[in-house]
């Protein structure tokens, strides 16, 4: 026993010695070598840097994307304000929410998916911050519709209680996801199989043939509605699509969401700024500047209707 322990001890100590050896190497000779290479690199910039300084094409993925996120800490004395630093951004953010780990849409479409309709893309992204893609972009058949919506945690993906009450608007660490009826059971629309399917596709994308790729994409996006849910269907007093009260919105917030202020603004946008943009499914009365575009595409195949519509 003692013999074994001693051997173990020696092995552990050997590992420690190797660790220190590497550490010392890094602190000493590696430092010298690094400086040597840095000096070489330094010289080359000085000579060739001048003419094509703003050559963006030469920038690598690393400098453009990986290093684009910077974080700062402002030491204010009474508190430390830590936030992401966005180049050229003036106002403080002091707000951080981790990525949505559950959504499989964002692996392709990102966290700011709306870009096509220039005038309202920021509004749509704002909503995408606390509303899952499927809430607006899947039109459920009568058989599947349950009118059940719940909050899920961005980090864990689990269904959680409503985060609305008390929190500043839109700052939730959770998103709204619709529930559908599948084989008589109430399940969330982003089921594990769909996540699995999308993940598999992402993993195998490189080896798939063009035909297979198209097929996979078709399947993933099978149940996307060409017509997303419109703004007015929620921002209304008259039977809104989302059951706001059930989602935990207090009366004051519901009033604010359906207030003339908000609704009026939506109206202005729809009528003056970009007619028919928000309801691209309808036939435009006047020829549009741009063809009607579905705002977003990432929607999984919805489950086949199995049970008769059950009112919740």
């Amino acid at each position, binding site marked *: 026993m*003692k*013999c074994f322990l001693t051997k173990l001890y020696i092995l552990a100590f050997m590992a420690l*010695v190797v660790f220190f050896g590497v550490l010392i190497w890094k602190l000493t000779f590696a430092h010298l070598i690094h400086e040597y290479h840095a000096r070489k690199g330094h010289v080359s910039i000085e000579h060739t840097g001048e003419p094509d300084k703003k050559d963006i094409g030469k920038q690598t993925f690393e400098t453009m994307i990986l290093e684009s996120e910077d974080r700062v800490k402002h030491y204010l004395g009474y508190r430390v304000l830590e936030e992401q630093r966005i180049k050229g951004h003036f106002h403080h953010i002091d707000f951080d929410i981790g990525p949505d780990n559950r959504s499989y849409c964002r692996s392709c479409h990102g966290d700011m998916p709306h870009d096509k309709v220039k005038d309202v893309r920021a509004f749509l992204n704002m909503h995408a911050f606390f509303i899952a893609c499927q809430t607006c972009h899947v039109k459920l058949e009568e058989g599947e519709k349950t009118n059940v919506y719940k909050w899920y945690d961005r980090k864990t993906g689990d269904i959680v209680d409503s985060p609305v009450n008390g929190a500043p608007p839109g700052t939730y660490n959770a998103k709204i996801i619709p529930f559908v009826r599948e084989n008589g059971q109430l399940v969330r629309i982003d089921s594990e199989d769909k996540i699995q399917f999308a993940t598999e596709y992402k993993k195998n994308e490189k080896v798939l043939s063009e035909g297979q790729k198209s097929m996979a994409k078709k399947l993933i996006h099978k149940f996307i509605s060409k017509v997303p849910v419109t703004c007015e269907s929620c921002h209304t007093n008259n039977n809104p699509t989302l059951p706001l009260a059930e989602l935990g919105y207090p009366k004051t917030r519901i009033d604010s969401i359906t207030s003339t202020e908000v609704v009026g603004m939506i109206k202005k946008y729809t009528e003056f700024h970009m007619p028919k943009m928000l309801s691209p499914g309808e036939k435009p009365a006047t020829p549009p500047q741009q063809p009607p575009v579905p705002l977003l595409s990432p929607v999984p195949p919805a489950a086949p209707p199995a049970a008769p519509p059950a009112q919740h």
Partner: protein
Amino acid sequence: MKRYPTIKIENGKKYFFRFDLDQRIQHIILAATVIILVLTGMPLKFSETSWAPYLNTFFGGSKMSPMIHKVTGAIMLILFAYHVIRVVSQIVSKQIFPLKKEGKMNIGEVTTILIKQPMIPNLKDAKDIIGLMKYLLYFTTVRPDGDEFTWKEKFDYWAPFWGMFVIGLTGLVIWNKVLATQIIPGELINLCLIAHSDEALLAALFLFIWHWYNVHFSTSVFPMGTVFLTGYLSEELMVEEHYEHYVRVMTKEGLAHEILPPHGGHKPFCDKPLPDKPDSPSTTTAAEQPNDTLQQGGLSS
């Protein structure tokens, strides 16, 4: 001055004299100051690391921590001065004065005395290093026999000696930079800073890895060698590390008949030595047997 017996016998085991009380106190002060200095200094050298703020705050933040560092550094410098004075005065009073009385005082003799000091590296050390390398690379099964102070101990002595000189001197300059730059150019402070921090890192790593391995963590002494507290080294370790000196001392004390066989390689830590190893003698069993005879030897303090 108290006389220390060369060999002390306790519970039938022999212990060999290494360090007197004065040396042991010096060592403990040195160890304590080094640890405090490293703990207060490293957060500055590695101020961008994640652990630095915690360590710095532990020592009282950026107001208190430098104070502690300076006071501790001063203590260490005083110790250094004391040590040098003591060593020099001992050499002068015990070796050079008698020489003068005999009238044999000349440069050659004095140099010989200085070179023959136990801590001065010599040819044997070089041979021992080569011998050790042969042993470690499995070319031989016999480790070289150490003298009173092995090359490792000499290294352990001279590295901090040089370190204390460099770090102490530069530390004094950095401490009193305003005063110092009345004389020396400001650019020298840059160099002092580099020397101070780089040499400190070297010293810290050297002591906490190399020295501590040799006296604490190696399987021969684990968990801790006690010689720095008691001043006496056990016979077992004496045989393993300083066999040449051991033989000399034993012979001098008239115990030549009790001399243990040489150590061969490292003391095997597994109790059952493998049967097929005729060329590596086991010292453990041999060490136990002659204990009874020691009592009759009648050598006690």
